[in-house]
């Protein structure tokens, strides 16, 4: 791999690049899924290629190829320079980069049991057993159990002299039961929707989820949802579980604090941000209970790494401190706009794509409450669990989330079950209404391996630490 990097950097420099970096990325994956008693897929795959990013005539160009012959690499480097020069015809200000150290290093993510060394028979047996348990409920008509693994090895090098090798393994698994009746399909999943929980780690992480042990509860709750009460409509106090809080943070704090969005670079696709650079240090984003960090150093999180795809060390930074906006997620280029150096958030979706600002582990820091005390302290409200639907506007202000399940809270006690609860709000008002966050005992990191951004579309593996939290006067039950 390192010889490919050297060849790419040499060719880009010879073609006229004033800066170049190159990444060779090799990935291996395996996915297994069982649906309603049938093995839906057993699949493995591999991908290898190089992405070369250059600055020439003061503008960016990026080209990528799976042709790793010497000729293929040289042609791709020259193409990256040609793309930069074409971009320069419209550029008014040459690209500048904030400084970063020169690193020669290796970094490896945690993995105790190599999941690729575990037999397909063992993996299938676990999924089929779990699926059998899910199907004991008659009203559960469709079931799903799946797991997937990715091994990544990548080498980054730049004309500034860094040469960094990183490798990690990600594992993901989850189950879902779908009850169908009276024109409704109601899902219940564990440990999260959309394929479950994703972590950096190996087979040990799959075993720790105890999928078969959780299947009876999941199936029972799915069946019970068919006869559960509809979500009440109106303004309510809501307590949101950790997994849904993770997505709430993702959509209404993570994305709007990406500095490329703030600067308008993502405007045409995902949108911009309701936050501006002048807001830094002054904007009240939420209540004093809201402190949010961006942290690429949490062991086992799929948002963790040694270095980002610009060669900037992974680090922890504050985005919101006791309710006040104190930081953005940045790149080497964008950090200059706020007079800082990069806090290491540039990542690419494989060798094929150019790095963009992506979330690491963006977390709502834990508060002081136990969950039981929080419910006991709530006179009239609802408690909701597990995302089922999400939508937010192009400035990340107006959002609407649907959840799989909820329960009424009356006089400090969880009461009857609610089907398909949803809630809507506007970002600063919503976070301003946060009056309690549960403590570290209830806090965990949730992997979100499906974050879409950029053109061409890139899918990032990000994560969020969150605990259950309480919000006042939230609109619930939209069209329920």
């Amino acid at each position, binding site marked *: 791999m390192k010889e490919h990097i050297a060849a790419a950097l040499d060719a880009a420099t010879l073609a006229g690049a004033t800066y170049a970096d190159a990444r060779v990325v090799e990935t291996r994956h395996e996915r297994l899924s069982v649906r309603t008693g*049938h*093995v*839906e*897929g*057993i*699949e*493995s*795959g*591999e*991908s*290898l*290629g190089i992405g070369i990013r250059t600055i020439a005539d003061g503008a*960016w*160009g*990026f*080209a*990528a*190829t*799976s*042709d790793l012959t010497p000729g293929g690499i040289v042609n791709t480097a020259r193409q990256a320079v040609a*793309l930069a*020069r*074409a*971009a320069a*015809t*419209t*550029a*008014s200000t040459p690209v500048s980069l904030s400084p970063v150290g020169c690193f020669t290093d290796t970094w490896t993510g945690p993995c105790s049991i190599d999941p690729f060394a575990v*037999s*397909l*028979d063992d993996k299938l047996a676990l999924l089929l057993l779990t699926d059998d348990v899910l199907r004991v409920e008659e009203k559960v008509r469709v079931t799903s159990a799946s797991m997937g693994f990715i091994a990544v090895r990548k080498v980054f090098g730049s004309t500034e002299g860094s040469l960094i090798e990183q490798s990690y393994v990600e594992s993901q698994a989850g189950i879902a039961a*779908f009850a*169908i009746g009276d*024109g*409704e*399909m109601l899902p219940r999943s564990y440990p999260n929707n959309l394929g479950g929980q994703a972590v950096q780690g190996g087979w040990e992480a799959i075993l720790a989820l105890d999928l078969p042990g959780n299947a009876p509860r999941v199936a029972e709750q799915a069946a019970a949802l068919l006869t559960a009460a509809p979500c009440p409509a109106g303004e309510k106090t809501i307590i949101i579980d950790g997994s849904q809080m993770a997505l709430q943070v993702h959509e209404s704090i993570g994305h709007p604090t990406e500095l490329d969005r703030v*600067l*308008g*670079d993502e*405007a*045409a696709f995902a949108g911009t941000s309701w936050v501006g650079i002048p807001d830094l240090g002054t904007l009240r984003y939420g209540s004093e209970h809201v402190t949010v960090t961006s942290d690429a150093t949490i062991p086992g999180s799929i948002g963790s790494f040694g270095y980002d795809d610009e060669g900037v060390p992974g680090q922890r930074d504050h985005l919101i401190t006791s309710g006040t906006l104190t930081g953005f997620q940045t790149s080497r280029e964008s950090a200059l706009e706020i007079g800082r150096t990069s806090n290491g958030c540039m990542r690419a979706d494989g060798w*094929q*794509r*150019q790095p963009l600002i992506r979330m690491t582990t963006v977390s709502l820091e834990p508060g002081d409450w136990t969950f039981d005390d929080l419910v006991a302290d709530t006179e009239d409200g609802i408690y909701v669990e597990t995302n089922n639907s*999400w*939508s*937010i*506007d192009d400035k990340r202000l*107006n959002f*609407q989330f649907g959840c799989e399940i909820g329960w009424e809270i009356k006089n400090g006690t969880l009461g009857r079950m609610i089907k398909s609860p*949803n809630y*809507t709000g*506007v*970002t*600063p008002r919503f976070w301003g209404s946060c009056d309690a966050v549960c403590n570290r005992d209830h806090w965990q990191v949730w992997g979100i391996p499906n974050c879409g951004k950029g*053109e*061409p579309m890139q899918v990032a593996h990000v994560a969020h630490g969150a605990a259950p939290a309480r919000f006042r006067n939230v*609109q619930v039950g*939209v*069209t329920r």
Partner: protein
Amino acid sequence: MNRSLDDIRCIADRAAHTTPADAAEAVVVSRYSALTRFAGNRIHQNVAEDDAQLSIRAVLGSRTGVASTNKLDDESIVRCAGAAAEAARHAPHDSDFPGLPQPRQLSIPSRTPLLLDAYGPSERAEAAQEILDQSAARGLVAAGTVAVNDTLTAVSNTHGVDAATHTDDLRATVLSMNGPHASGWSSYYGRDARGFLPAQLGSHAATIAERSEGAIELTPGTYTVVLAPEAVADLIDFLGYLGFGAKAFAEGSSFLIDAQGSRVVDPRISIYDDALSPATVGISFDYEGQPRRRTPLIEGGIAIGPVTDSYFAALLGRDNTGHALPAPNAYGPLPLNLEMAAGDTSTDDMIASVERGVYVTRFHYVNVEDPMRVVLTGMTRDGTFMIENGRLAEPVRNLRFTQSVLSAFSSVGAIGSQRQLYGSEGSAVLAPSLLLERWAFTGQTG
């Protein structure tokens, strides 16, 4: 791209016949993509990628397994074939698996290539400049893309399926921003470069942006709406994803399940999937090498049935409509070239017929609230206006809707006479504008 159609056809054939299994299917997709992206009135990202992916589905009796690689040397192909067979060896028997399909007559439409060379880095930069000049000249800020894709697809199996085709497309978008609260949008998607007029595209978006300044608040509620074709395309796309696939039908989660032969929407609405249409960009066979054909999904408001692949056609006892996605996949067969039949009313005449309503240029971040009733939520974006007394009136701040598409399509006032193509990366929708009598706006941006 340094591979020819013959090259990838040979790779697919060799890969299928390399298998140590009873039977095998190989799919090769080779793609060169280039995308010029601009924001802040300058190109800020200019990218290109070249890759080819081989996927092999191995069959042992009724057991299947899949492996893929982007390494296309002989050794890697043999290893990939072995991995697929190994996966099949571990899979349980599936009594519903009908075997790999037999070859069928393909109808591959003759299409003039887009001439990729005409859209190299310099030409894309020039087009981007023409687009953003329209905003810059009016003191506005433009963002968007000019992108080309050139794709070779080959499918081969050990029963003799041998399908290969070349497709290409061009997509351009422009968002014109007039301060933080007003914007306009325009886009082009297709394979006829004569329809891509950069200056016109840029001007249209800038005109909407200028018109959007000073947006007012609107009380959420049920309104008559005129949806521009791009907004309609979003709704049809979700209808296809949620309702028109055989997997959702077989599992009982599609609205079609108890509605075949019944009226589900206004009788003026007909929806088809048609990859062979000269107006679209799709390939004419599916990822099992089976011919796609014009497939009615809703005709005269009556639900017809889902699209299928070989597996679900056998399972449901229906014809194979040729809508297989690459195996394995979680979605089952899906329609990728949807179109709504045109009506006979111009968008201007629709607006002229509305006493009070809302005009929507496009939607943003649409998602599913209730899959069986096709209840969606999402936001309006880049040009939402009041309609007062038959004319476009004040711009409106972006609105959230929460609405059943089936209910909305049952309250049709008029269907547009002109259709436009929207989409990206192989999935396209040909849509007209729509006048809908009842549309539920449930919130507004902050």
